[in-house]
């Protein structure tokens, strides 16, 4: 019975890590930059969701849509203000810009929401008690969050496969020069990558908020977990990011349940190290594995 509880809990947390990882991978695929401000984008989105749902008393669904829209806009602004001016700069400058942005976002959050309380609480999505189905314990709250995360992933996959913007993003990621030659505005694609990455962070924040608490320093730890998941998946593989996220979540949960709670923080990173030793390019990044 304990195994099923821990597995479901791990999958829920892992699905959220997977969303964070997806955002990191999208930006990395398009621009070659790891966005160190990704955790802070998520944090700001969490506070925006709190303002809409708790502050303005809007229904959860409306808060979700509003936050995702604002997340998209923040992504566009991020590209315009922080990255577009550095388009021709070297990689180190771009990475430093993301670090700088993370501090700006954290400071802004402290300025706007910092004085309200140490931590802000987002109401749970459902008050229902756990449901026992034989040996399986279903926690309604986790079920809703997991379903939400899956819906975001499916919508994202559809965007990539079915829309012109998605196909242009894929083409640019595969070969930016060739994409430019066939007339794709790669600068717009980069902007779209930041915007979509930020949008997914916003969706993850709205889904995660009812499970945890909101505070300005929450972003970095979540970024580390999402980044670890992205690395396991190969850093440029979208399905790999999803797999990596779920792996990190499940390992964390099972280690906490079967070894000891003190093992929760370190166990996923041990697994990641093991994965990277066996497959240095990540679990699903087959393209880079070359026999010599």
């Amino acid at each position, binding site marked *: 019975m304990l195994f099923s509880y821990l597995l479901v809990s791990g999958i829920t947390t892992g699905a959220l890590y997977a969303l964070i990882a997806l955002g990191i991978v999208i930006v990395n695929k398009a621009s070659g930059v790891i966005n160190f401000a990704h955790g802070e984008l998520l944090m700001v989105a969490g506070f925006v969701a709190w303002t809409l749902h708790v502050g303005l008393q809007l229904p959860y669904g409306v808060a979700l849509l509003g936050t995702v829209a604002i997340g998209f806009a923040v992504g566009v602004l991020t590209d315009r203000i922080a990255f577009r001016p550095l388009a021709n700069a070297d990689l180190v400058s771009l990475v430093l810009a993301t670090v700088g942005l993370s501090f700006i976002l954290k400071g802004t959050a402290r300025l706007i929401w910092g004085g309200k309380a140490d931590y802000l*609480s987002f109401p749970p999505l459902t008050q229902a008690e756990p449901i026992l189905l034989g040996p399986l314990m279903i926690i309604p709250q986790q079920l809703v969050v997991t379903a939400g995360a899956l819906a975001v992933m499916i919508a994202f996959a559809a965007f990539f496969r079915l829309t012109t913007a998605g196909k242009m993003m894929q083409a640019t990621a595969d070969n930016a020069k060739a994409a430019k030659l066939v007339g794709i505005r790669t600068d717009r694609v980069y902007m779209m990558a930041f915007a979509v990455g930020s949008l997914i962070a916003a969706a993850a924040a709205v889904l995660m908020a009812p499970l945890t608490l909101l505070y300005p320093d*929450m972003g970095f730890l979540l970024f580390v977990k999402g980044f670890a998941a992205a690395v396991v998946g190969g850093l440029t593989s979208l399905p790999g990011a999803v797999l990596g996220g779920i792996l990190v979540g499940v390992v964390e949960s099972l280690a906490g349940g079967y070894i000891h709670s003190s093992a929760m923080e370190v166990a996923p990173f041990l697994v990641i190290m093991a994965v990277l030793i066996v497959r240095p390019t990540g679990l699903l990044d087959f393209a880079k594995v070359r026999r010599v």
Partner: protein
Amino acid sequence: MRLNSFASAMVGTLLLAVAPAAAADAPGVTADKIRIGSFGALTGPGYLYGKLVMNGVEIVFDEVNAKGGVHGRKLELVREDDRCDPAGAIGAVKKLIYQDQVFALIGGGCSNATFAAREEVEKSKVPLLVFASVHDGITTPPAPNIFSTATTSTIESYAQLEFALKRGAKRIAVVSMRDSWGRARYEPLMAAFKSKGVKPVADEEVSPDANDTTAQVLRLKAANADAVIVLLYPKPAAVFLRDSAKLAFKPIMIGQTGIADPAAFEEQVGVPGGTANFYTISMVRYTPDDPAVDKWRKAIEAKFPGDRLSVFNLFGVGSAQVLVEALKNAGPDLTREKLIAALASIKNFETDTHGGPITCSEADHRCHKSPAWIRKEPGGPTKVLDVTPVSLN
């Protein structure tokens, strides 16, 4: 006649010259003023244990000054921000002692910061009365010049176990952080378990930044714990109580002064009924809305417009009353040595706020050993339940 007048004038002049000179022997003391320094967080989330407690100290000083001061000297409070940071606390006490030349100190909000400043204060021999920091290392082993009116972590840990046993708990578990704050409570708690011949049924760890404690709750649930001693900061504690509610785990939850405001904590947990079984320790025996502290409520509202009386103000009120009592007992020829001796001699002194009488001694500078238990009923007011006097002997 002329000679007599001249002699009288000379004696008078000499007396006038000698009186301030005697007072000036003690830094921070003049004929009409005693300068007292205070350090703690004035900014950031730790301001609850710093700025608000200092506000409580200041209203006591105002009351004393309005009545003519202590032996004719008015009390002046000089504040320094330590930002809840160890390096900040060392800098703050150095500034107060050497630059502002204060006579004595009353302060110490965040435990780790105050603990870091201990060495500097001890070296300076300036008397310090700690008003909020609970770290055992601040007063144990005792520094000759440092006393505390805060319930220390050992006292609280013993009180937590005592409370669980008094409530009839048979299967007591522990959930703790293992940073320096957590260890300062965890180790004495384990000693308390040992001294009572009780073994915890589960012993779980939560990181200060935890966003999910499902695994810990499941392990505690599997151990069938009927009481959980919570050695966590408010944030991980709120996550833990949320997850407990989510998993329908409803034992008695026993907190400590790290979670001193049950109303704010109920909001942070944010799950209706999530704190129904939560009890915590307060250093003071009144909640801010109790009529017994009306006088102090009015004083806070008058002195700091826009502020509402909080338990943290009440920590400061009680602590300042102890300092004032010691200053009175030290006599008009004030020296730091006399104040230290007076603090060590405080016996069964009842403040307007603390859970029990304040008693210090040469050997034990933990002067407050009567933590009060408080609980907020869901949707109702916070109530003080009882006081647990702790004997560590």
